[in-house]
């Protein structure tokens, strides 16, 4: 395991130490703000690296309009066989070398980073059996950095402490607030996508809404169960990445919404309105035409979701 994990510890601790050095002159080397920003810096860096993948995926989603007739044909032909329908759809994408679906790898690639950060921060919080703090150095987080990080606080709670690992009220309050924040961002992201970001759906709409309701209760539970075991630093990482996801989606829905979604129609209306004001009514009239065919094709998305049941 070591040969996989050691480079990860080096990356995570290296990035943290780098951002620590960047922010030290501003907030002070031992300041909790500096260390919190180091963790957030790590998130921002990872998410920026992932942006091109995200853009690529969006582009290929938009490119799908050209395949509309074929997709419709497949849907009609295999109305009663969802599996066959999914198979044929995948074949079609592959044939045209476009795939609107994300790949699993980028999402899962974040998991080892998360795990490495967890280990690095847990190392900071390590204690001997007698309860004497004995931080374990991992990667570049050693020597004075290690001692400084071990004392760093986020709103009065040490970033190395966890809800279950302490009796301090301040740590418990901060972890609970962070868990609530994570639940809230996840839920708003989800809700925003459902109400604005997705094409209008037919029968499967109900199922999605149902799912959303379940998630409303399930997510705080998942976050609570895992969150009480995680050091505050990991929760900072998690909260930041959630906030980023929300912001990124907000931007896309506002500026470049999926064709057929309510947000898309709103944008079209705004553009048409603006064009009219500018005296270019042709541009405004053209937009509904572009809109119409796109709406139909995007309706297929909910059907694909059902393959999960298999």
């Amino acid at each position: 395991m070591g040969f996989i994990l050691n480079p990860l510890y080096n990356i995570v601790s290296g990035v943290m130490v780098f951002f620590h050095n960047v922010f030290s002159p501003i907030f002070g080397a031992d300041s909790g703000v500096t260390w919190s920003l180091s963790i957030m810096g790590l998130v921002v860096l990872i998410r920026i690296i992932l942006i091109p993948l995200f853009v690529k995926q969006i582009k290929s989603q938009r490119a799908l309009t050209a395949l509309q007739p074929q997709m419709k044909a497949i849907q009609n032909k295999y109305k009663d066989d969802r599996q066959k329908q999914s198979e044929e759809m995948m074949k079609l994408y592959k044939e045209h070398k476009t795939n609107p679906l994300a790949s699993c790898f980028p999402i899962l690639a974040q998991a080892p980073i998360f795990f490495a950060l967890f280990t690095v921060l847990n190392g900071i919080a390590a204690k001997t059996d007698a309860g004497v703090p004995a931080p374990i150095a991992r990667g570049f987080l050693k020597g004075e950095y290690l001692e400084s990080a071990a004392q760093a606080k986020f709103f009065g709670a040490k970033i190395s402490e966890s809800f279950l690992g302490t009796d301090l009220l301040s740590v418990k309050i901060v972890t609970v607030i962070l868990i609530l924040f994570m639940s809230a961002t996840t839920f708003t992201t989800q809700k925003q996508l459902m109400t604005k970001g997705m094409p209008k759906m037919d029968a499967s709409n109900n199922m999605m809404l149902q799912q959303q309701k379940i998630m409303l209760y399930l997510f705080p539970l998942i976050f609570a169960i895992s969150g009480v075991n995680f050091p505050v630093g990991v929760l900072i990482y998690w909260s930041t990445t959630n906030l980023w996801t929300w912001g990124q989606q907000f931007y896309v829905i506002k500026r470049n919404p999926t064709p057929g979604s309510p947000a898309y129609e709103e944008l079209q209306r705004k553009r048409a309105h603006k064009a009219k004001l500018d005296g270019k009514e042709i541009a405004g009239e053209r937009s509904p035409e572009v809109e119409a065919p796109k709406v139909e094709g995007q309706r297929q998305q909910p059907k694909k979701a059902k393959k999960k049941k298999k």
Partner: protein
Amino acid sequence: MKRLADLLIKAYQAFSSTREAKCKYYPSCSNYAAVAIHRYGLKGLLMASWRLLRCNPWSHGGVDYVDYDLDSADALANMKEGVH
């Protein structure tokens, strides 16, 4: 072990179903992993890992079953006909 793997995959699926992004392969990586591990154990775990590596932004995805002869829509349809 197989049970644990199954549980982890189920948990992942519940968690990830809230996001818009879905796998570019059919069946999805998690479904593939569940079948592979159930059927082949440790070898299945390796198969699933290999599939995850292939499911990257530069691949084109497509139809990819653990065993095409057993799992594909055509295979299932044939099986049904055989029973009747």
